[in-house]
């Protein structure tokens, strides 16, 4: 139990450090197991330093920085044991345009590294223009959902003018 957790920690930490510096285009980050000699009771702390800033715990970063860092952690875990399906429900919500772009490049990288199929739920026009196809969910009748394929070319035109 303990040995497997420590092995998982090593793998995930290595992935996390790489993904963070890719997403933030620099800086440094690491996971630390804290507060207990027994890793099975320990806490997982996240330390991060965006380029040019001080190393702090996750809780002292900005909203968007926290979201991007936590996303790096989620993908660090994912890469340790890739799933056949990954669904991301509005994880890009707190990100500014530059960070949404980096998030989409991360998804492209995940696509190359795995055979996982991704469903990306989003309100963001940049994300909408960076996926391979789009489903639109609508309620033509109040309270009743329908699913339609959306023309990606149109979504890309809209994003290009935004």
């Amino acid at each position, binding site marked *: 139990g303990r040995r*497997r*957790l420590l*092995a*998982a*920690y090593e*793998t*995930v930490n290595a992935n996390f450090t790489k993904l963070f510096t890719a997403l933030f285009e620099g800086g440094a980050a690491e996971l630390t*197991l804290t507060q207990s000699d027994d890793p099975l009771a*320990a*806490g*997982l702390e*996240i330390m991060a330093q965006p380029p040019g800033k001080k190393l702090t715990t996750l*809780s002292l970063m900005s909203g968007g920085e926290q*979201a991007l860092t*936590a996303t790096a*952690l*989620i993908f660090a*875990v*994912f890469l*340790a*044991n*890739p*799933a*056949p*399906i*990954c*669904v*991301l*429900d509005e*994880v890009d919500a707190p990100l500014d345009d530059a960070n949404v772009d980096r998030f989409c490049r991360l*998804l*492209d990288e995940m*696509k190359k590294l795995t*055979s*996982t*199929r*991704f*469903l*990306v*739920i*989003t309100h963001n026009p940049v*994300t909408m223009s960076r*996926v*391979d*196809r*789009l*489903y*639109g*969910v*609508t*309620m033509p*009748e*109040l*309270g*009743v*959902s*329908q*699913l339609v394929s*959306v023309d990606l070319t149109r*979504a890309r035109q809209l994003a290009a003018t935004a």
Partner: protein
Amino acid sequence: MNIAELRLAGFKSFVDSVRAPIEPGLTGVVGPNGCGKSNLLEAVRWVMGATSAKSMRADDMDSVIFAGSAARPAREHAEVTLVLKDARGRAGAPFADDDVLEVSRRIRRGLGSTYRINGKDVRAKDVQLLFADASTGANSPALVRQGQVSELIAAKPENRRRILEEAA
């Protein structure tokens, strides 16, 4: 193994039958607030054998059945199906040679859930194990619910450590 299609009927706001092929790469899902996008993720977790009604914004499991709208009456059952391809050997006998597995969960109001693979009744455990062995399942860290990133940020360090246990 690939997850190739999601089908819903009577599940939450998807009262009418809906088929959603899931193709390789990145598929975006868009639409206005409240139109049903998160319900799709909940349907995936539900058919994989999710046991916590709370984790799918429901007071109890019957709450996932279409509850009616202004124009339509409530339904008495809901069904979700996942179609798995390149799935040979993923399920035990009698499915050991099946390349395509249709895994479905059905709930009837007041009567609980039943599970099927390729039309045959199976136990919830069989479905949960099938997906767990394929590195997925209702608790897969790759299924990121709305607000879950914020929960991870706000979590106590001891609770955050559990994300490592999913990777182990």
